[in-house]
């Protein structure tokens, strides 16, 4: 039983990685695209690069094929990530580093990263002459790359493994001593999940089966939320604000709820007790409503986590964009608004820390409640 949920947790990771690989990618081409824009919008602003807040915000919220750290003048410092693509036009699996695209200036092995239109940020085929024109007749290649969000998930997995394996070793060595160090941070959280989420929601007899999944999803969401708030390198990717990731987390909850549903659970869905017969036969109104309920519960889990975390990031990015918008008008306005902006951003980040914990807590609590409802005995 415990092994089964461990296998499910393992497949969660594989699932999440696979799904995020199929999510949208947006290449961060700040300096180059701004230069291109300036060349086209000829004489108006040659010196100052026009700041576009919408583009700025979406670049930082979205996924990307390389990890952009900072831009100094015209140079971008970015960590290239591997691109793994199955090209249907060339019928071959291509693996290479994203640095070969030179921030969107060249095409490589018949592929390039699209800069505008509906495929913006994704990898598309180019025409045979090897230039930069998109081949509109070819279908997009199957993109399995290690994008920024996937890399961040791997970093989070490494962090979780390090934290929990070191704690487990300390407990194995002397199980009866008082916790110190990392243990004293994590043990209250684990006990909180066991005693205040799992036990009341699922019941004394069955909560043990679901504890591995609940703990894993709580710490995965919590650590990813926290990592998303850190602006420096191994952090700062918007993982839980990526709807593919939250989709997979919600699907996991849905799968576990469905597969652990006992006869009582299905009876309540298809033949709810206490409901008059004419709502179930000939037109099964009640069962349809119940089935819609079964689908919407995980769907709401997905949207809640995605929207909360994305909104937090958008607010922080919006405050920073204010500085640049004012700076475009006059450099002194930019400097003066920056004090206010940074203060507000610090305050919002404190709120975001609270939201990071609360969203992880609510996701885990609701999953536990659904498991409890699925395994409830007849009363």
């Amino acid at each position, binding site marked *: 039983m415990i092994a089964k949920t461990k296998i499910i947790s393992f497949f969660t990771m594989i699932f999440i990685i696979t799904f995020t690989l199929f999510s949208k990618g947006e290449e961060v081409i700040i300096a180059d695209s701004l230069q291109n824009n300036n060349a086209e919008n000829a004489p108006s602003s040659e010196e100052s690069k026009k700041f576009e807040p*919408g583009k700025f915000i*979406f670049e930082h919220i979205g996924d990307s094929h390389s990890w952009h750290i900072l831009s100094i003048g015209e140079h971008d410092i970015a960590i290239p990530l591997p691109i793994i693509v199955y090209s249907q036009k060339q019928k071959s699996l291509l693996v290479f580093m994203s640095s070969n695209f030179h921030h969107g200036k060249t095409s490589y092995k018949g592929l390039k990263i699209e800069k505008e239109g509906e495929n913006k940020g994704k990898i598309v085929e180019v025409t045979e002459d090897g230039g930069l024109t998109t081949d509109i007749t070819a279908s997009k290649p199957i993109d399995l790359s290690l994008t920024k969000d996937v890399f961040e998930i791997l970093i989070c997995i490494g962090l979780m493994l390090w934290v929990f394996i070191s704690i487990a070793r300390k407990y194995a060595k002397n199980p009866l001593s008082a916790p110190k160090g990392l243990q004293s941070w994590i043990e209250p959280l684990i006990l909180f999940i066991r005693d*205040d989420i799992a036990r009341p929601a699922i019941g004394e007899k069955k909560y043990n089966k679901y504890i591995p999944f609940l703990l894993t999803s709580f710490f995965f969401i919590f650590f990813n939320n926290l990592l998303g708030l850190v602006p420096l390198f191994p952090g700062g990717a918007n993982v839980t604000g990526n709807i593919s990731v939250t989709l997979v987390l919600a699907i996991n909850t849905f799968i576990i709820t469905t597969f652990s549903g006992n006869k009582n659970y299905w009876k309540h869905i298809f033949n709810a007790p206490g409901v008059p017969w004419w709502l179930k036969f000939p037109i099964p109104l009640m069962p349809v409503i119940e089935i819609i309920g079964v689908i919407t519960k995980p769907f*709401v889990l997905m*949207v*809640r986590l*995605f*929207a*909360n975390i994305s*909104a937090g990031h958008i607010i922080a990015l919006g405050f920073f964009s204010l500085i640049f918008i004012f700076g475009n008008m006059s450099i002194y306005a930019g400097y003066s608004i920056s004090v206010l902006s940074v203060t507000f951003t610090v305050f919002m980040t404190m709120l975001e820390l609270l939201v990071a914990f*609360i*969203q992880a*807590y*609510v996701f885990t*609590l609701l999953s536990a409640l659904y498991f409890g409802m699925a395994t409830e005995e007849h009363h």
Partner: protein
Amino acid sequence: MLTLTIILQAVASAALAKMGAGIGAGIAAVAAGVGIGKIGGSAMDAIARQPEAVGDIRSNMIVAAALIEGVAFFAIVVCLLILFI
């Protein structure tokens, strides 16, 4: 006159969509504020009646607030979809 109204409508439809998104987001904010305000208010009343139950009341209040925020965020996501897609 008729042509002018038609042209105006064609031009305005894009702007109307953006205004609709703005109004929708405003309504979502108001609704979330009202809902969570009610929860906060009854939580305060409950704590005043029975100060030793503060812990239970606080966790239940936070859960209810998070659920309501979830619904408000649905509206925000729809408004963002209108604006940007």
